[in-house]
């Protein structure tokens, strides 16, 4: 529900900006305030070398980190959201979409591709938070659905990297039904005995948590990620007290039994390959 505020944060730390950062500029960790060269920071998978803070990154970076030699085939990249409700709040939804597409160079909040990770074939769907807070609308649902079709056809395992503020309000009930759509479609993957690995990254909340993000054969998270159904602000309002320290972090969610493991981004590719090998042999 709190994606609105976060859009701005998403924009200020947009991956595009980072890419355009000239050599020699510095990255300041928002957590420990340590300053390090941007290049070194990027080489360290955008993880702070001092405190291990995992910077929010997008599909561009995840594909580069995971796919062997950064080689992958993206599919359905041109899908664009319709505006079935002709939704207007302070701005027309169609204008919001056009602006966001121009600003982010993305067509929606998820990209889907297949390629190899450590030699293992896999389909990866990766969400982009900078696209309207990584909100889930018709395109996110349809691209996941078609990615599962590719898995079924090629007999590839599936990985979805979630990073989302939840539903896309401008698509209202259509957005809600993407929860049903993706969950229903995942049953077909299970029937075909193809593994589904869900990677929850900072933040994964709302309708995404309450559908595909929590339905992995393995639910994995990055350290420190916010993982929630109701966001911390809403929970705080509900209980009328301050929240305990560490509430709704990946570590908290693991302790309560809803994650299989937490993987540091530096080890993500190696561990993912190992896991894929478990399923294969």
């Amino acid at each position: 529900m709190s994606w609105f505020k976060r859009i701005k944060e998403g924009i200020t730390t947009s991956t595009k900006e980072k890419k355009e950062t000239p050599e020699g500029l510095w990255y300041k960790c928002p957590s420990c305030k340590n300053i390090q060269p941007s290049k070194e920071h990027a080489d360290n998978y955008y993880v702070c070398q001092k405190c291990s803070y995992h910077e929010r990154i997008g599909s561009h970076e995840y594909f580069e980190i995971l796919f062997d030699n950064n080689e992958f085939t993206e599919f359905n990249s041109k899908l664009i959201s319709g505006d079935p409700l002709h939704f207007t709040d302070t701005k027309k939804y169609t204008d919001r979409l056009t602006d966001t597409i121009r600003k982010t160079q993305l067509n929606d909040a998820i990209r889907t591709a297949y390629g190899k990770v450590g030699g293992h074939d896999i389909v990866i769907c990766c969400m982009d938070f900078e696209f309207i807070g990584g909100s889930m609308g018709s395109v996110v649902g349809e691209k996941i659905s078609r990615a599962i079709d590719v898995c079924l056809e090629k007999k590839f395992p599936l990985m979805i990297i979630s990073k989302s503020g939840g539903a896309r309000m401008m698509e209202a009930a259509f957005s809600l039904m993407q929860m049903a759509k993706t969950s229903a479609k995942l049953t077909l993957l299970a029937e075909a005995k193809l593994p589904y690995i869900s990677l929850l990254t900072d933040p994964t909340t709302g309708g995404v948590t309450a559908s595909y993000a929590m339905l992995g054969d393995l639910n994995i998270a990055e350290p420190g990620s916010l993982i929630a159904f109701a966001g911390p602000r809403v929970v705080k309002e509900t209980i009328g007290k301050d929240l305990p320290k560490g509430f709704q972090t990946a570590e908290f969610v693991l302790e309560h039994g809803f994650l299989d493991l937490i993987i540091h981004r530096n080890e993500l590719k190696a561990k993912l390959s190992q896991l894929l090998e478990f399923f294969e042999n």
Partner: protein
Amino acid sequence: MSHLDFEKPLDELKDQLEKAKQIAEKGKVDVSGLIMEIEKKIEDTRKNIFSNLTAWQKVQLSRHPDRPYSLDYIKAITNNTFIEMFGDRNVKDDKAMIGGFGMVDGQTIMFIGQQKGNNTKMRQYRNFGMPNPEGYRKALRLMKLAEKFNKPVITFIDTPGAFPGLEAEERGQGEAIARNLYEMSILKVPVICFIIGEGASGGALGIGIGDKVMMLENTWYSVISPESCSSILWRNWDNKEKAAEALKLTATDMQDLKLVDGIVKEPLGGAHSNPDKMFQTVKSEIKKLLPKLLEMDPKIRVEKRIEKFCSMGVYTEG
């Protein structure tokens, strides 16, 4: 006394009618003509009000404190054969979610629904119809029980949302709802869902994956309440009426968008103005829908259910 502003014109007429009846009782003046006139006026006014409801007025009706709740429907429809079953077999019994077997004309059915309370104490007891993860897990346990013994499932949806509390988060509210979406998609028995009041977001959808999803005439179903939508998109609560329109959350909107399968007509004045008639309408709807679903091959029924939800979404190939 009416609870809603737009019901007020009816109050005045009802007062007039009461007075005329009192005069009639005294027997001195013949007011039978007047009484008929007022009764006709009430009928006309009611028709006038209820045939032109705005989206926000329908939201208000869906929350009307006199509106029947899940247990009212279930008891009436099953002719009091309903036996409630409690607990999720893990943590506790969630009072905001109820379920159990009942019989409709010789057919055993598993009924499940969110439950609201009808006075201050009961509203708290029922947590205002906002289930915790245990509620969703109880619902799933009962659905699995129904599946095992090949009994159809009927759910009644009426919730302002899944409870956004601390313990709910600790015990995996998101996982509980996700699990239900997944498992309901492949449940081997027929599933019919009725939205009888509020259908708010994932909390509603968590018992809402059906072969047939029906909305009562004066209910709403969307990803967020108009109030919360207003506060997020317009940053105040004053645009709730605008938000209600924009969200296209009424039964007619949802049917037009093909996101629900049908609308169940309410008595003139809303479900609360004639609950018995409402229960009969829902019962006849069940008797109309269920035989066709029971006839289908379970495998095909599940396939069609999955296909239906997978076809939802509007996009262009760019």
